[in-house]
């Protein structure tokens, strides 16, 4: 058994959950990020938007410590992710959950084992307890319990996303990354996935960082939208501010036919919590 050490831990909701300062990324001679700054505050849903090749996915992978930027600093929970020891990084990794674009469920494991894996890795809970947790998580994402024995290959796209979300939430993360959460889902399913994320965000007070191309998802979920243009964050502001910015990209994105349609049904700004 591990020693029951006291936890000298301070809870401060005023430090940004994600803090990016002067980030530069260069692939050969191609510069992706030119001194990018971004803050994500506790409890916010921030969406990253930008054209193809604007470095949204790269940025997310850098925040997740999967890639290292050429220069600059990324802090998550106030801890720099690229200069920390493996042990510190492991602690951060337990506090975030990631929903990959294709779900990234382990194809060799059943639905049940996929969700149980991160819990088993903690080696803190017995199997009976883990069973209850897995069933609870399945309830949370509205997946019927009879699907627990299925293999990922036997699931539909919408179910894969939900189960991947359940796995991302397995360790009760404070910060959740969603990479294209509704890509590849039909409008009906993407609608219900959005409302699922919305209700989970409200209930669990999650901080959410999301990449999306889907205007409806963007409009209905985001507290704030960070627009990536020319390697920088052009704006990090609520929808009603961002959509009125005078920049060619923003004009194309929000003032086009599709953008107008999505904005016309936008709820009144929820403001920042």
């Amino acid at each position, binding site marked *: *058994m*591990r*020693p*029951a*050490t*006291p*936890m*000298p*831990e*301070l*809870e*401060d*909701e*005023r430090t940004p959950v994600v803090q990016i300062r002067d980030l530069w990324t260069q692939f050969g001679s191609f510069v992706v990020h030119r001194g990018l700054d971004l*803050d994500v*505050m*506790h*409890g916010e849903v921030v969406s990253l938007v930008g054209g193809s090749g604007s470095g949204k996915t790269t940025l997310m992978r850098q925040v997740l410590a999967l890639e290292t930027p050429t220069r600059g600093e990324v802090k998550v929970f106030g801890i720099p992710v690229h200069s920390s020891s493996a042990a510190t990084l492991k602690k951060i990794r*337990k*506090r975030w959950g990631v929903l990959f674009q294709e779900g990234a469920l382990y*194809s*060799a494991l059943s639905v049940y084992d996929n969700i149980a894996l991160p819990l088993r890795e*903690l080696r*803190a*809970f017995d199997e009976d*307890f883990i069973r*209850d*947790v897995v*069933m*609870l*998580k*399945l*309830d*949370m994402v509205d997946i*019927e*319990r*009879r699907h*627990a*024995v299925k*293999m*990922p*290959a036997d699931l539909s796209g919408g179910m894969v996303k939900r189960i991947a979300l359940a796995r991302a939430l397995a*360790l*009760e993360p404070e910060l959740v990354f969603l990479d294209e959460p509704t890509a590849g889902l039909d409008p009906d399913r993407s609608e219900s996935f959005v409302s699922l994320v919305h209700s989970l965000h409200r*209930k*669990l007070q999650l901080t959410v960082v999301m990449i999306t191309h889907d205007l409806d998802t963007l409009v209905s979920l985001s507290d*704030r939208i960070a627009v990536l243009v020319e390697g*920088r*964050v*052009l*704006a*990090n*502001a*609520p929808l009603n*501010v961002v959509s009125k*910015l005078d920049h060619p990209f923003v004009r194309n994105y929000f003032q086009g036919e599709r953008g107008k349609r999505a904005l016309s049904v936008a709820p009144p700004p929820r403001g*920042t*919590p």
Partner: protein
Amino acid sequence: MPDPVAPATSAAPAPVRILPPEIHVGDAGSVRLTGAWDIRALETHAADIQRRLAKLPADAAHVWDLTGIQRLDHIGALIIWRAWRKTRPQNSRIRAEHELFFTTLATPKPDTSEPPVPWLLRTLITAGAWIPLVASHGRSFLVLLGQLVIDTLAMLRHPGLGPWREVSANIYRVGAQAMPITAAVGFLIGIVLSYLSSEQLRTFGAGSFIVNILGIGLIRELGPVLCAVLVAGRSGSAITAQLGVMRVTEELDALSVMGIPQTVRLVLPKVIALAIALPLLTLWTTSIALFGGALAAKAQLDISVLQFMTDLPGVVPAVNLSLGLGKGAVFGVLIALTACHFGLRIQPNTESLGTGTTSSVVSSITAVIVADAIIAVAFNNVGFS
């Protein structure tokens, strides 16, 4: 460019010191829980906490005070919920913001899973599963073979429409590119065989028979089999994996909807290519192996390489060479068919890709050896002087 709108500073509470989870048992059956009851804290304390909660007498009418809990999540709530034997006690005080965790736990979704199959039946089902599996393999292999025959006949009527470019590319890939490895293995096997045999022959003073042994053994038997095993491992696996990946990426379906038959574009070129390339590779491997054998014979028995080569046609009838090359062609067709058969059966997932490739290599090597045994029996009085 600066942000047009600076992030609003939220009015969050001042920092609070978070304490580890703790259970305080009062005198009148009251239980007070304090500290952080979330996964971060429970990761180290769970076992201890669960043991202490289990020790609380179940029948006592406890008064539960949860208002001292600083942080709660589903994991913490579940531990408390289990201590409550999954029903909310009558006397409990919970912070308003923590209520929702217990509401979720109090309303579980119904479990509609099918009841598990009894052990005996499950064992029987598992044991019997190979029958439909073998049947389905047999059926799809037969379909593949039939389709191939139909396509070949159609192609013979219009030879100009044949997939000759693919055939040529495949010959290069499975034949020419395999030459270094088959040469290296053949050379070494020739040396080993020659060393072992010459030791025995020298005891009987029958050293010159090394030419007979190596000639018959390598040309008729070892050359073709060795070559086929190497190609099955090298190209068979590649063919299966290639077709499997095409299944995973839906390329096979793309071919189908364009009306391009898979057998003509993918299977037939590989079968033709291996039927041509494997006899040639066999010839190459056997020659190198004989050369290696001759070198070892010079070292061990002092039979010169020239002497060895001059004696060879005299003691090994030429029909053995035809037999060896014929076997090469048969093995080539077998390897290509087996590899394609397994490749086309792969399901669109990574698991199936791995197992399919493994079964393909194992099956094609087994098929080669079975075919070799049948041929050995069928031709047992051909080719011996």
